[in-house]
């Protein structure tokens, strides 16, 4: 757990303090305030995907075989794994949140903290289900690098985690609107900072629907695993 905190903290500190002055000068306000929710989402995203993808390893060497042979419906196993992975990912998010407080982040609205927590849960759940869905189709670790570089990185960088989504070029605008993480980042900003782009209800709606969709797809693919 501690090792995987390295990257988010690095981003937070390096980008936060590095870009801070320019961001402020351009009228964006305090960059650390802006960035922290994005970095929290970064931690949740990466941890969730890793948790989901773990099953490739598990498939041959671990525990998965034991669960597939047991008299338990695959759907239950899927839910169990997704909730478990999401729990770990949310804990990461919370740790990053606490660290960001050390670096200068100040949430505006403490009452909304529980809602922020729910958003984090939704993001974690969504991406763990996605990780599991992807991993259900992979037989070994070879495609793993490709998934990280061509799917996860773009999801992170084009989600408004690092830069505001107002006034971006049209192409980027379209992509960010289609990216579920954008709504997660926005949701966190809305609950922690009262600063939204899509609106909190839109965020909840998109996150909720996509999470359920991915859970359904993931369960289906998971049930089709043959080892």
């Amino acid at each position, binding site marked *: 757990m501690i090792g995987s905190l390295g990257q988010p903290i690095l981003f937070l500190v390096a980008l936060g303090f590095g870009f801070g002055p320019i961001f402020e000068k351009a009228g964006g306000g305090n960059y650390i305030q802006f960035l922290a929710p994005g970095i929290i989402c970064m931690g949740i995203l990466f941890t969730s995907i890793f948790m989901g993808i773990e099953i490739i390893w598990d498939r041959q*060497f*671990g525990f*998965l075989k*034991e669960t597939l042979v047991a*008299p338990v419906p695959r759907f239950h196993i899927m839910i169990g794994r997704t909730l478990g992975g999401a729990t770990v990912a949310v804990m990461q998010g919370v740790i990053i949140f606490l660290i960001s407080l050390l670096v200068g982040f100040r949430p505006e609205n403490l009452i909304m903290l529980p809602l922020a927590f729910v958003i984090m849960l939704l993001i974690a759940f969504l991406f763990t289900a996605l990780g599991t869905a992807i991993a259900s189709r992979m037989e070994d*670790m070879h495609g793993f690098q490709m998934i990280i570089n061509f799917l996860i990185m773009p999801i992170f960088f084009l989600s408004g985690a690092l830069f505001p989504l107002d006034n971006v070029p049209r192409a980027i605008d379209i992509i960010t609107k289609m990216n579920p993480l954008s709504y997660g980042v926005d949701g966190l900003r809305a609950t922690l900072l009262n600063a939204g782009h899509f609106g909190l209800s839109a965020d909840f709606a998109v996150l909720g629907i996509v999470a359920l969709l991915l859970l359904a797809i993931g369960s289906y693919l998971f049930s089709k695993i043959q080892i």
Partner: protein
Amino acid sequence: MIKALNVTKKFKGLTAVDDVSFEVGKGEIFGFLGPNGAGKTTTIKMLTTLLEPTSGKLSINGADPVKDKDAARYSFGIVFQDPSLDDELTAYENMEFHGILYKIPRKELKKRIEYLMKYVELWDRKDDLVKHFSGGMKRRLEIARGLTHHPKILFLDEPTLGLDPQTRNHIWSYIKQLNKEEGMTVFFTTHYMEEADKVADKIAIIDHGKIVSKGTPAELKEKTNSSSLEDAFLSLTGKDIREQEASNMDHLRAMRRMHKK
């Protein structure tokens, strides 16, 4: 107890198991032998609900593993070739999790775990993390775990592969004892012919997906005029080394060796 009737399994362009039929009676120790790539593991996977046959009928303790998956699953325990334990849990926790998956009531589970772990002599290590266990210990734990739900059948895929002679001896003595005292049916695969010779009541040899020969070890030796089961085996399956492509499994095993501490 275990029946296979004209079972075939085809993958894209490859017939892994071709019209295989055999029967294992209650309380028998049945050895399923064959060269690499013969179709042993595929057959076991079909018997244990992990794969569905392309055609043919299977029966596990009277239940069809395709139509009555759960009924079949409660009837057997399995020890896989590669460990399927959760390394980050203790031995006790692994046993407990199995009990939860198989819906064993709490109180009974506690007693059962203690009994089984003492049986395989791992009770004093019950609170140790499995990642610190040797291969032999993991195998013993998996045997204990597979028996938790009182299955009528125990499947073992290469149970003594890579183990030292003392551990191998221990494992077979547990199994023989279970077979004698509780009438447990045992279905195993192995490359260790001398062990199969000593332990098995009946043997089937599979090669290129087809059953080549069936019978007791004595019958097979007589049929091929051999003094050892290994010679009988070689005479029935030929002496050529089986060409195999490195499978995904081999890659994963290599990666695992790299990552092991």
